[in-house]
């Protein structure tokens, strides 16, 4: 498992011996780029990295805000939850018989009623969708880099993810 090189394949990368400074994270192209092209490519790759980072950051911030708002609403509606010592035990909320939404229909209903737990779950779903959105941005990035093989691979991942959402039948 830890031997150094694989037996398969032929050395087909002429660039592998001499890493030029701009060439470090090469393009997806199978021919070697001119220094000019490599520079443009490096800038594109950097822009893609920043875009993906931004998507993740936005997803995370939006979901934290929604979840925190849901918690506040939940605690505001149930003043007895707020006590440090009190008769209400958290166990009534964390047992398998605790009612909380687990389909989109009941979730919308719960949110429409202004229930804290519905708002929290909306935030959690936003969090779950963040990586999916990141994959979608990945597809666009590889199209932008004109890297067809990687764009196809990422598109397939996206299709599987979207498929898994429908298969779940929420």
């Amino acid at each position: 498992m830890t031997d150094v090189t694989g037996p398969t394949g032929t050395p087909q990368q002429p660039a592998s011996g001499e890493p030029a400074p701009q060439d470090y994270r090469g393009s997806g192209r199978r021919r070697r780029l001119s220094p000019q092209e490599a520079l443009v490519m490096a800038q594109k790759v950097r822009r893609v990295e920043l875009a993906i980072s931004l998507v993740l950051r936005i997803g995370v911030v939006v979901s934290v805000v929604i979840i925190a708002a849901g918690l506040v609403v939940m605690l505001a509606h149930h003043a007895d939850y707020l006590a440090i010592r009190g008769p209400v035990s958290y166990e009534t909320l964390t047992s398998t018989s605790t009612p909380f939404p687990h389909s989109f229909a009941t979730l919308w209903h719960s949110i429409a009623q202004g229930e804290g737990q519905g708002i929290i779950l909306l935030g959690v779903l936003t969090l779950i969708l963040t990586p999916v959105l990141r994959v979608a941005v990945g597809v666009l990035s590889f199209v932008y880099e004109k890297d067809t093989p990687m764009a196809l691979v990422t598109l397939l991942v996206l299709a599987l993810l979207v498929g898994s959402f429908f298969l779940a039948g929420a």
Partner: protein
Amino acid sequence: MTPFDFVASVALISVAAGVLGSLIGLGGGVVIVPVLTLIYHVDIRLAIGASIVSVIATSSGAAAAYVRERMTNLRAGMFLELATVTGAVSGAYLTTVFPTRVLFLVFGLVLAYSSFTTFRRRHADVPLTVSNDRIANYFNLHGSYYDQAEQQEIPYKVVHTKLGLALMYVAGLVSALLGIGSGALKVPAMDSAMHLPMKVSSATSNFMIGVTAAASATVYFVRGQIDPIIAAPVAIGVLLGATVGARVLGRVASRTVRLVFVVVLVVISLEMLQKGILP
């Protein structure tokens, strides 16, 4: 203990889970599941639902920083996601096929072996400069990162992509079946099998586990395993922790990351073996 105490204490523990999870690329589930079941006596099904949420939170929270700092190998990560997502989707529908006890036993042994191979590489952790791997060359999965601890740019080549793909499939499958452990196989797959540097393996695993978890998360939601009062403090705490943890990885030595990872992996594998032997 009132609901407020529960939310506050779980959020604090989740911060620690987020720091650890983002540092070694495992997600917060390693800490969250035992804490919820053993200390708070939460049902295992709800604890696993919370664990899935914590994995996505760790992944997205830390990856935002890792990608920007070029610690993640984006191409390798997105390429390998194909295998891990396929594994996760198939696993979500195979839950009834395999007896859980056998799975815990088999996976416990696999992880024990992985922790051994990861530990063995502690002296030989030198990045490769050539690769004959046809897939890695075609998709150009090789990369380079700036190591803050060593203060230099470190280029590396990727090998054994096929083995990596196979291990990623298993990682996705197991995470969907057992709700835990997707990162525990991803890091050794990239470090020991594909020869990515340890820190890149951790950051890239971290990048990928969110997508693996998202593929099975909707199923958990529909099955009613995502309890809002558990998910809320876990998500917020882990996100905070992961943001902090992502600042740490760049600065610590690869060796430290590797040793912390090995220790956690040994703990997980013992935990799984125990569940397989004494249910």
